[in-house]
């Protein structure tokens, strides 16, 4: 277990090192990657730290909310613009690891690690998040939904860095919530669900649903969310939605849970999420 460690100060420097160092991996908080290295599940030739790359830090509340990829979860939790506009993202941070983990872990790391159960992913999916990627050739933007390719697999090209997560501004009566279940309090999600509805005159005009740990990638439930549009969020609709989701997910049985239970739990969490949104406009709740 030995590797070179690089600590670039600028993005250009980081990208140059990456281009010149075959087998190198970027590391942000290291809470995924270092665990993999210690378990010998990863053996990079070199690590390129992103923690001191100035361009990757900071949150900028412009036309879109721009969250630097190296922003830690603790920083995110303390950001009023996030709490005000994107409460489901805050919901997802509360059960995330522990305080020590949140002090180190970054939002970019959570997405780039591409775990199907990554807690930040479902809320960002329902907020139509876009990720900004950059390599030496230039920058590109991509919908988060397309960024996830498979378990641990992303659309990142070799040597490419995620620089920021971009969230569209919030407008209208938009309500969102994130719910998750795990075996114990300190655990990755068994199943997680994010829901967003935009209500007009008691009826849902826009809906987004996403679920974690029930498919190879954090999954936007496009077919299911369609059932909500035009409905008043009544019991019948909610029941239909929570049953329909089962067809859109493909959970597996693994050491954490069974496919059957994950399917069941997805329905329960969706029902509870929608009931909360009906009851508490704009309130993010755990």
């Amino acid at each position, binding site marked *: *277990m*030995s590797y070179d460690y690089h600590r670039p100060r600028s993005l250009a420097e980081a990208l140059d090192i990456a281009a010149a160092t075959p087998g190198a991996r970027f590391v942000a908080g290291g809470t995924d990657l270092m*665990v993999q290295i210690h*378990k010998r599940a990863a053996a990079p030739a070199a690590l390129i730290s992103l923690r001191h790359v100035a361009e990757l830090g900071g949150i900028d509340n412009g036309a879109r909310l721009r969250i630097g990829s190296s922003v830690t979860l603790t920083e995110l939790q303390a950001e009023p613009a996030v709490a005000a506009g994107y409460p489901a993202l805050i919901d997802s941070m509360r059960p995330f690891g522990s305080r020590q983990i949140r002090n180190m872990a970054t939002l970019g790391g959570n997405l780039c690690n591409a775990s199907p159960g990554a807690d930040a992913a479902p809320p960002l999916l329902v907020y139509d998040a876009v990720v900004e990627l950059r390599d030496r050739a230039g920058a590109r933007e991509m919908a988060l939904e397309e960024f996830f390719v498979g378990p641990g697999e992303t659309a990142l090209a070799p040597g490419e860095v995620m620089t920021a997560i971009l969230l569209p501004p919030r407008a209208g009566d938009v309500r969102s919530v994130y719910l998750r*279940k795990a*075996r*114990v*309090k*300190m*655990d*990755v999600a068994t199943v997680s669900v994010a829901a967003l509805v935009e209500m007009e005159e008691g009826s849902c005009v826009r809906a987004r649903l996403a679920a974690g740990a029930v498919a190879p990638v954090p999954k936007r439930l496009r077919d299911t969310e369609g059932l909500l549009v035009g409905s008043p969020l009544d019991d019948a609709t909610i029941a239909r939605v929570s049953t329909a989701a089962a067809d859109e997910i493909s959970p597996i049985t693994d*050491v*954490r*849970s*069974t496919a*059957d*239970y994950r399917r*069941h*739990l997805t329905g*329960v969490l969706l029902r*509870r999420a929608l009931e909360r949104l009906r009851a508490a406009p704009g309130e993010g709740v755990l």
Partner: protein
Amino acid sequence: MSKYRHVGTEAQRPEGADKLAGTARYIHDITVAGMLHGAIKFSEHAHARIVHIDTSRARALSGVRSVITADDVPEVRYGFMRDNLVLKKGKVRQFRDEVAAVAAIDPDIAREAVDLIEVEYEPLPSVFTPEEALAEGAVLIHETDAAGRPRTSNVVPLPCRHASGDLDAAKERTAHVVEGTYTVPRIQQAALGTSGCIAEFDRNGNLTITTKTQIPFLAQRDFNSILAALGLEGRNVRVVVPAVGGAFGTGLDTHAYEYISILLAWTTGKPVRILYDREQEFAYLSPRQSASMFIRQGCDAEGRFTFREVDVVQDNGAYTSWGATYPNVMLVAATSLYRVPAVRFDSRIVYTNNTYCQAMRGYGNPEITWPIESSLDDLAAAAGIDPYEMRLLNSNQPGDVTPMGLKLATCGLTECLDRTAARIDWKEARGPERRTARGVGMASLINVGGGGKIYASDGSGIILKLDDFGHVNVAYGGVEMGQGLHSALTLMVAEALGVEPENVHINETDTATSPWDVGTHASRGAFMAGNAAVMACEKLRARIFEHAEKVYPAEVERNLARLRDRGEDVSPAGFDYTSVTRDRFDLQGGRLFVVDAPDEPWLQIDLGRFLRAVHFTKEGGVGTIFTEEAFYEPPTELPDWDRGIGNMSASYTFGVQGVEVEVDVDTGEVRILRLVAVTDVGRVLSPQALRGQMYGGIAQGVGYALYEEIKTEEGRILNAGFTDYKMPSAADLDFPIELEFVETDDPYGPFGAKGAGEPGIVATAPAVGNAIFDAIGVRILDLPITPEKIIRALREKETAVAGAGGG
């Protein structure tokens, strides 16, 4: 007011400050000059023939000092049934089998070298459940026993059974019967401090091994055999125990890694350390056994037990540890929890190709209490009796001799039941008015509290040595592993000798200086240490008082002279201090005085001054220093396991836990709202240590009830680490835990105390299961009670109800 000055007081734990500050020295903190690092190559199959081991690439790696396989070193057999080889020859029988080992100049090189060892295997058919292992024509895991005799089945030859009373007649008197097969999973002991040791030889071939163990003296015996194999028969083995970060039973056997570090120390001539990291601890150390337990019990129309039948099948894994004697301890509750006039108990331990198992806290008792106490609630339901009333009706009483022959000198079970019911608001919480999906349950326990005799001696020695300054050094062979033994022992020595606790110092456990002790298990540490300490302290006091006859008058004169120099006056002594006889002296708080005048400073002699006065005399010849030893052997019997009869402990600890839960019927999650534990510990010795034991045991009990399970696939552990082996953390124990202690003042216990190391974990799971049953009317027979199982059971119940309605 308590009759004791120190016993029962809130004293600080003597080792606490160093543990908090990080200055206590665990095996991980110890290095020895010139030390090498060992690493082990483990099997990659559950059952396979070893065709060839190629170590050439490992040997060629720079920094490697030794690579060994079974071909390079003498054969060393070990284990409770001597069915295990330190390095495997011929075949592997489980994924944790040790096939080769490396010593290198740093741990990374050692691990890298291990990866370079290539082993060619020829897989063999395997069995992963006792059913498979017992099936006709099943592959034999061991073709021969340790003596080379052919074996014909996978049953481990360790009979343990019991039959008492007239079962047929009892069944005839029975009005209600329930039965069921309950299972418990393999779980991890999960001590915070992982395993490790350092072995080193001196140039005379004497071995010193610093190791995390609970059995320094049985380990010494075990390691003698490896010296013999190395041609060092008769050389000395010294076992030193460093600070231990929890063991929970993992230290009750010697382990291959210890023998391997000895072998590597021998082949290299250097000290060799082997440390396990967390993943290795999970994968390559033995977990607690899984077991399947059939129970049938009945009662008469009033709810009195008429009979109990139990059949235990325990998955041993591929080799045998002390843990295979769980049924010996299961007998205690199976025969003696409540008054049961007719009992049949049978057990079978079965070899499989799973990782072999070993002991954990409670040693069979949490296992057997799970079916007994769960099915009791079913029986109460069948009989239409409140389960608490049924427990009271059948409660053991002091003076009882149980079917196993256990003599219950004291028994506070009835009081524990009453106090638990009162604290958990039993009647109200169970009443018809209760909110849906909330329920309460309780479960009782009996545990050995005065040792547990399963070895030729269940005794403990102690050596007390007073220095010239009034400090007493205690050499004891038991192990402080976080349980608070030193807290309890410090207070007991202070009490029995008459010194302040700050002046009591307990030595590091070391076979070179500590007297023999069978091991720290079976909740026996404080009980045995205390009894031995009381005996030794009495001897020491007698000698002090004998010498005081000579020294006291002159020392009082010195006091007087000093006072006169200062011009102070004293009131008369009221007795003749120049001729006090030994029976009138007392020692309290490190001050020697005469019972006639306990409070007069000028008539008191500081213990240190007294000791120096006796020690430094002008005459030649025989001098005096103060050292005393005692060996306490409890008045118990080694049971006859074929009949399951024998009073294996001097005292028995009783307890009851009550739990209130809320079940989320949509998700199946169980939330514990509060937990009450009332325990008859005889006497509280160190409240702080005792609370720690109870909280820790209960936390493990909650894990056993709701979360913990080692998951395997074809013998391979899938969740070797805390990422997927889930224990409750502080965040999950977010409910009040109320502790209460009943003091029955046991005649055999030191100051009346009974052992209390294990009871915390014993009754939690059935109490939780019973509360869930009360809340939602489903009973889960298989631990842990996961949300999945609850949802499945609720669905089955719904289908059954719907089916009944439709039909």
